[in-house]
Each structure stands twice: as C-alpha cells, then as structure tokens.
C-alpha cells in the first residue's frame, strides 16, 4: 500500500513541449482476448476443450491416459501436451492412438493463449470434437492465463501434503472440477482428502470434487460424468 499515487510532478522544459499520450492498454488483457479468440475458434468447429492443470507429478498425464481409452470410440480426440522441454507425455499419450501435439514452453511455467492458438492451427480441427490441454505442472501461474477452454480441471494428490489447497487458492477459483488423486496413499500420508476438498470448496463453492486412484482406474468414470461427457 506504500505506493499511493501522487500527482505526477515532472521537471519539464517548457509548457507545450510535452506530449501526453493516453494509451489505456491492458497488458494482461492480451492473453484474455487471445483466449476468447481460441474459444470462438473451438466453438465454430463444435469442439469442447478441457484444460487440465495441476501440480507436478499429481497425475495429469495419468488422468489423460485413463480417460483416452474410455473416450476415444465416442469422441474424435485431440490432445495438446504442455511441458517445458520433453516429449515424454506426448509419446506416452500417442501410444493410446489419438492425435497428440506437444507444446514445449522452453522455460515458461505455464501455457498461454498464444501458444494454444498456434497449436490449434496445427490440429485437424475439422475432424475433432474434444480437445484436452495438459497444462505445465504448476499450481500458480496457469491460474492467471486462461487458454480459451470450456472447462478447467485441477489435479492434486495427497502426496503433496496437507497444505497445497490453502497455499494456492487462486488456481481453484476459476476451476470447474478438482481431482484429488492417489487416495490409496491418504492414510500413510496422514492427509484427509475430504479436508482438501472442503478447503477448495470454501474458495470456490461451485467446484465439483472427485477422489481418485488413477493408477487403478478408480474414479475415472465419475470424472467423465462430471465433465458432462459420456463414455462408450
């Protein structure tokens, strides 16, 4: 609060020699506008797009790998896999027999609407009706960068300890579905998934929550239902 705006005082040469230019330009808006463009583009092709965010190692790719076999006969699927440097996720998901495109952000910690726009132009949109975007593993930055998806999912897991919801409130604000993974490890970790869910619901009461053990495929069908999709 220390930066209260004072009347601008500049030592000026002469009156009239200064050019005052009103710009009124919002630099965060750019991403939002691009996100809106992406959304329009997806809508024009009748494609539903779901952004999967979550912490590192929480199970984002595992979630996709378990969703694909159940969805691929019903929907024409496309996947955008975001990662810093590797194509590990894309390789893993390509084996499931769907259209996968890797986006490498280099050193950026999140996907932004421009990267997604570029990626969308490389996917055969005419042929697709459902796209999943796997965001970079991070609970902080993706919150500030909407991509134009119709739904946002956050995947967390009990192995990240009991505080990750309280510590990262922003990501849950704009989220539709929270997946709490690795519940088979809840007891040894001493973490109560129900408490995590309650904490997230306090931040965003409209959030749906599903507890999963994705390694064993537990909870996948519930996720499909919560996303408004249906499986074969």
């Amino acid at each position, binding site marked *: *609060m220390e*930066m209260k*705006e004072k009347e*601008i005082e*500049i030592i*000026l*040469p002469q009156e*009239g*020699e*200064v*050019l*005052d*230019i*009103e*710009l*009124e*330009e*919002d*630099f*965060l*808006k*750019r991403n939002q506008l691009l996100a809106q463009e992406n959304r329009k583009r997806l809508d024009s092709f009748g494609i539903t797009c779901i952004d999967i965010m979550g912490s590192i190692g929480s199970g984002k790719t595992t979630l996709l790998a378990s969703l694909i076999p159940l969805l691929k006969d019903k929907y024409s699927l496309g996947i955008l896999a975001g990662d810093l440097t590797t194509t590990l996720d894309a390789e893993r998901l390509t084996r499931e027999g769907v259209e996968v495109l890797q986006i490498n952000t280099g050193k*950026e910690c999140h996907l932004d609407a421009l990267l997604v726009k570029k990626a969308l132009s490389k996917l055969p949109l005419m042929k697709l009706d459902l796209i999943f975007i796997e965001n970079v593993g991070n609970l*902080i*930055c993706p*919150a*500030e960068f909407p991509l134009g998806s119709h739904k946002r999912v956050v995947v967390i897991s009990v192995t990240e300890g009991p505080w990750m919801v309280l510590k990262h*409130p*922003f990501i849950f*604000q704009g989220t539709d579905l929270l997946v709490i993974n690795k519940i088979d490890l809840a007891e040894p970790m001493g973490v109560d998934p129900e408490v995590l869910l309650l904490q997230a619901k306090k*931040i*965003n*009461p*409209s959030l749906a929550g599903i507890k999963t053990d994705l390694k064993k495929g537990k909870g996948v069908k519930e996720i499909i239902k919560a996303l408004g999709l249906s499986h074969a």
Partner: protein
Amino acid sequence: MHEFFLSSSIARRVLQEAKKRKVLSLHLEIGELTFLNPEQVKFWLRELFRGTPAEKAKIKIKKIPPFGKCSSCGYRGEIKPPLESFSFHLFSPPLFCPKCGARLKIERGKDCLLRRIQLLK
C-alpha cells in the same frame, strides 16, 4: 511472477510509441489480484530502458485494489481480504458478495494497465 515477460511487452510498446523521442514518464496501474509485483516490474523496466530514450523516465505505478460487482443483489464495491495484513498472494479474496453471499464478478484488480506516457516533443 511474470514481471519480465510483461515488462518486456510494456517496454516495447513505450519505445514504439516514443519513436526515439525522450520518454519523461509512464503511468501504470497494477491490480492487486494479479501475480505482478510492482517493485519487480519497475526493476525490469529500468533494466529494459537502459540505453534507450526512456532511460530516465519516471515510472509511476498505482496499485488497484480488487473491486467487484454482485450479479444477484447489485452490490458494488471493494473486495476486502479477510486479513488485510497478509500479503496479496497469501489471502484468498472472497469471491462472494458481502451483502447476499452470491458470486461476485471481479471488475478491477486483475489488470495491468499502461494508462499514459509523457514524451518530449
């Protein structure tokens, strides 16, 4: 969090507008709900302006407190964090209306605005 990336866009825009004229000042407004630290934005702008006509520009940054509107009862006003002493990234700003408890629409506080710049003719 993304101060360098954002400061680069701002610096590019300012220098493009200045067209080699000396930049006297720039006026930014940064919302408290963004992940931008005004101190860091200032630091990066200084670095980026080094050796350019904006090198000596005054960088004014105004913090914009969160402001919301309730679509249910029509309440409009500042959104107060529950503990004001907490720094902004520690509190979870209530997104609900203090009057009726419905969801609030955030009108300001999530922006990073370059209001205006002053140039020497």
